[in-house]
């Protein structure tokens, strides 16, 4: 359950929020990831009023309230300050009218003032709340960034994920997190992974123990979050399994409803996992740029075959003509 306190604690400072009344209601839950300017509702039209959303008062709302007679002002405010309301924010440095302050304090509805202009606050708050409400999952794996591409390395315990990541760091790539990756959908279109605060930039390597990558290799080798562009699954080499030899079929995996390119990478002594992951990444970049090595080769091959066939056909035709 996401409540007003969570929002205030995490985003209060960047949004410039200042709590002015209704402290007792900080535990109110935010049920809908939306914000609302109560213009029409304030004028008395309450049909389908969005009473579960955070209300934002801007210049117009404040001016309108000031123009009303005191009794009317209280009546209108009471009609929109419902028990389910999560919070009220007065944006643009406006001073909330005294009746609003008193009512919020009395009803325990958190009332904030914000320095930011109303429209800016509206957009930023909408984005923030939407992200807070976006689907989240935790998965076992290691997230690294190589050549600007976010690679989620998955695989069973002790298949060598951490060792691969260590190799990547040594080659100048970056670690986001090892072991536990928190994945969140961003803007409904892509995935972003990050690590839990407590174990951030820490790795456990069998035989060595827990190491801090940021301290060992420097700040350049780590980052806090990264978009997940591809998933590489490390697997013990299985002689009975057929691994992709051409790379024409692109495989995808589904994470939180988002399709991500997926590669199964068999591991065995003598196969340099770091180099292989780097190659997958470079190939991915090339594909993004519009060049697919496998497809290009296939086209060339088909072209060569058809040319050969045509030449053969022509030769046969000439032969039969000269005979007749």
């Amino acid at each position: 359950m996401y409540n007003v306190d969570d929002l205030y604690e995490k985003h209060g400072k960047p949004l410039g929020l200042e709590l002015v009344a209704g402290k007792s209601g900080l535990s109110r839950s935010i049920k809908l990831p939306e914000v609302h300017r109560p213009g029409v509702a304030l004028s008395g039209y309450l049909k389908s009023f969005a009473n579960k959303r955070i209300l934002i008062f801007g210049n117009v709302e404040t001016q309108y309230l000031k123009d009303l007679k005191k009794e009317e002002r209280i009546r209108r405010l009471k009609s929109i300050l419902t028990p389910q309301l999560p919070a009220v924010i007065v944006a643009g440095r406006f001073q909330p009218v005294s009746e609003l302050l008193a009512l919020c304090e009395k009803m325990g509805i958190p009332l904030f003032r914000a320095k930011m202009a109303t429209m800016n606050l509206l957009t930023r708050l909408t984005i923030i709340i939407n992200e807070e409400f976006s689907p989240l999952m935790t998965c076992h794996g290691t997230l690294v960034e190589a050549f600007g591409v976010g690679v989620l390395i998955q695989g069973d315990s002790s298949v060598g994920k951490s060792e691969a990541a260590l190799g990547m760091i040594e080659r100048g790539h970056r670690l986001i997190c090892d072991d536990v990756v928190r994945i969140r959908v961003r803007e409904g279109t892509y995935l972003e992974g990050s690590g839990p605060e407590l174990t951030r930039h820490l790795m456990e390597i069998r035989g060595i123990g827990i190491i801090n990558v940021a301290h060992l290799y420097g700040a350049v080798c780590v980052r806090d979050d990264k978009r997940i562009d591809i998933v590489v699954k490390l697997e013990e080499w299985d002689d009975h399994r057929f691994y992709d030899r051409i790379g024409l079929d692109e495989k995808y995996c589904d994470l939180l409803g988002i399709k991500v390119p997926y590669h199964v990478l068999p591991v065995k002594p003598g196969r340099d996992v770091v180099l292989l992951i780097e190659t997958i990444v470079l190939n991915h970049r090339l594909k993004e740029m519009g060049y697919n090595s496998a497809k290009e080769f296939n086209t060339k091959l088909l072209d060569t075959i058809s040319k050969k066939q045509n030449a053969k056909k022509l030769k046969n035709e000439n032969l039969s003509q000269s005979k007749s």
Partner: protein
Amino acid sequence: MKISRKVRVKNALGLHTRPATAIVKLLQGTKASVFFTHKSETVNARSIMSVLMLAATKNSLITITIEGEDAQEIMGKLVDAFEARFGE
């Protein structure tokens, strides 16, 4: 076979490095997949960092979920270890 059971952390310092090591050591050589759920977080119990990440304090509840042939046997061992406060 999939079984799950709730256990309480009983040792004073909670799930710190030593108990986590004991858990991982106990699971070594077993086949089933073992997960710990604490609050809303579910992690792989075979990974020491994951277990540590939970930062479970004394008296916190942990749901152990085991799936695999040797599930029953592993569950018994794990519950015993929690009950014995990991020897602390």
